[in-house]
């Protein structure tokens, strides 16, 4: 590991000032915020990340979960994943978020990992994590070892010829289905970024994963009030029953009455280069009858643009069945 200086800012303003002069807030940043450290320290040990400065945000007063006046929820950036998953309001109103978080990692890691850190969780692509391998995300222009390589766990949606790395987060998938907003404070003031716009597709610049700029500090995430009468859940399919990343997952927030779907929000995990909100699937569900045929149509729509790689064609059907089963569970057909 390369050595670094540790800065302990007293408040958010100091934290932002300390990171403004980093040349990038993306891969290869020379100044980074550190919270739980469960991704960053791992990658520093692998020399994938080599920041010269770390700014410790663990003590900033960004650790609260509070109801908003409109009936939504505010979640502080350094709220630990465990606290978020077990919070009574989350268990009651945002079941999908609780289930998604509890399906990821382990108790120890969830006790450390934070909301903002989870938003910025890095891919598990082995070519990204191994500095001996080519990877356009880690070293732009070096090529992609995963295309025609070991790509069984990698993405089939939102890929480019430069990168097929999966976004590994479960929390992000639930946040996408819940239409969360990410609140950022930077040198130029505050911004509210819908989660759909927060992560970006790899395209020609896979080293760029989010819209964050130097000095940008995620302060909190807000959730809109729960849709009246909705049922939500997270279904995760993986090689092991626990402590494993998703091969495919589905976050479903659905309101149905009298056998008809009034509203649906759908996001997929384990298959996309970013948390994969599927408005295509939502359109196939809205105002349609609650039945197998509707769900299958929605699943087909969600995966229509899928581009499988040499080892992961199975994910297309797996993701479809995952979504269909999640919808059945949510509407109590299963």
């Amino acid at each position, binding site marked *: 590991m390369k050595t670094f200086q540790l800065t302990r800012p007293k408040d958010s303003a100091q934290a932002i000032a300390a990171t403004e002069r980093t040349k990038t807030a993306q891969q290869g940043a020379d100044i980074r915020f550190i919270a739980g450290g469960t991704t960053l320290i791992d990658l520093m040990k692998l020399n994938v990340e080599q920041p010269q400065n770390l700014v410790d945000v663990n003590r900033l007063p960004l650790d609260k979960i509070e109801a908003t006046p409109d009936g939504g929820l505010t979640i502080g950036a350094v709220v630990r994943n465990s606290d978020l998953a077990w919070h009574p309001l989350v268990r009651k109103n945002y079941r999908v978020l609780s289930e998604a978080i509890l399906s990821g990692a382990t108790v120890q890691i969830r006790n*450390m990992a934070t909301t903002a850190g989870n938003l910025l969780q890095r891919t598990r692509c082995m070519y990204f994590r191994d500095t001996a391998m080519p990877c356009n995300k880690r070293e732009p222009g070096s090529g992609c070892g995963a295309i025609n390589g070991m790509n069984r766990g990698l993405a089939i949606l939102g890929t480019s010829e430069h990168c097929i790395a999966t976004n590994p987060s479960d929390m992000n998938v639930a946040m996408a289905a819940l239409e969360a907003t990410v609140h950022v404070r930077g040198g130029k003031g505050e911004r509210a970024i819908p989660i759909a716009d927060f992560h970006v597709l790899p395209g020609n610049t896979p080293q760029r994963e989010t819209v964050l700029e130097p000095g940008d500090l995620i302060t909190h995430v807000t959730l809109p009030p729960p849709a009246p009468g909705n049922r939500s859940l997270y279904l995760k399919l993986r090689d092991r*029953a626990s402590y494993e990343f998703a091969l495919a997952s589905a976050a479903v927030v659905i309101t149905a009455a009298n056998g008809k779907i009034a509203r649906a929000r759908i996001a997929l995990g384990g298959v996309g280069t970013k948390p994969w909100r599927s408005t295509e699937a939502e359109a196939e569900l809205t105002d349609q009858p609650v039945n197998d045929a509707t769900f299958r149509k929605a699943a087909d729509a969600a995966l229509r643009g899928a581009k499988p790689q040499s080892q992961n064609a199975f994910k297309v059907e797996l993701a479809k069945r995952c979504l269909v089963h999640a919808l059945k569970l949510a509407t109590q057909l299963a």
Partner: protein
Amino acid sequence: MSDRDHTPERSEAPRRLSFGQSTRRTFLSRLGMAGLLTTAGPAITTLAQRSEKAEQELSAAAKDAIPVTLHVNGKKHDLQIDPRTTLLDCLREHLHLTGSKKGCDHGQCGACTVHINGRRQLSCLSFAALHEGDEITTIEGIGQPEKMHPMQAAFVTCDAYQCGYCTSGQIMSAVALLKEPCGPDDAEVKEFMSGNICRCGAYQNIVAAIQKVRQGAKAG
């Protein structure tokens, strides 16, 4: 590390190789030293020179050291450490609390599990310097051979280990689990314990030990 090579325990190793009075750790280190003496006698001077070099390297690294105060097992420690020092390395190498183990060093095995402010975390995935003001508890603070925590006793009773390398991490997780929202079934215990890997496969007995303590607590 080099300072450890000069501990009386090690220099006396060839004279007292009696296993009866030893902990496994001292026994193994003596065994290692004895092997070294028989097979590599002439290399001993090189070893001494090497340790001098390591000392110099250490003091060079110390230039980057920062002051850190840690509270571990109820004791306060004022340290000067390289900011890169993980909490695990700090506990083991600086405070000589070697009960917490380094398995994978990447947050995948759970052998390094400790309690921070009462909650279990992975000491290998955190820097010591991030824990000023935190209350850190290691396996040494949970219980001692003469006064074991009920969970430690249950691990012995249920034979919940073979090689023992993962055991301190398993016990730290198991003790934390008692206060977590874990359901009553074995399946739920397994899910809550999934962050602690046992290469020997003592899982059945680990679950049994945990359930024994939970049932005892309920009965009591």
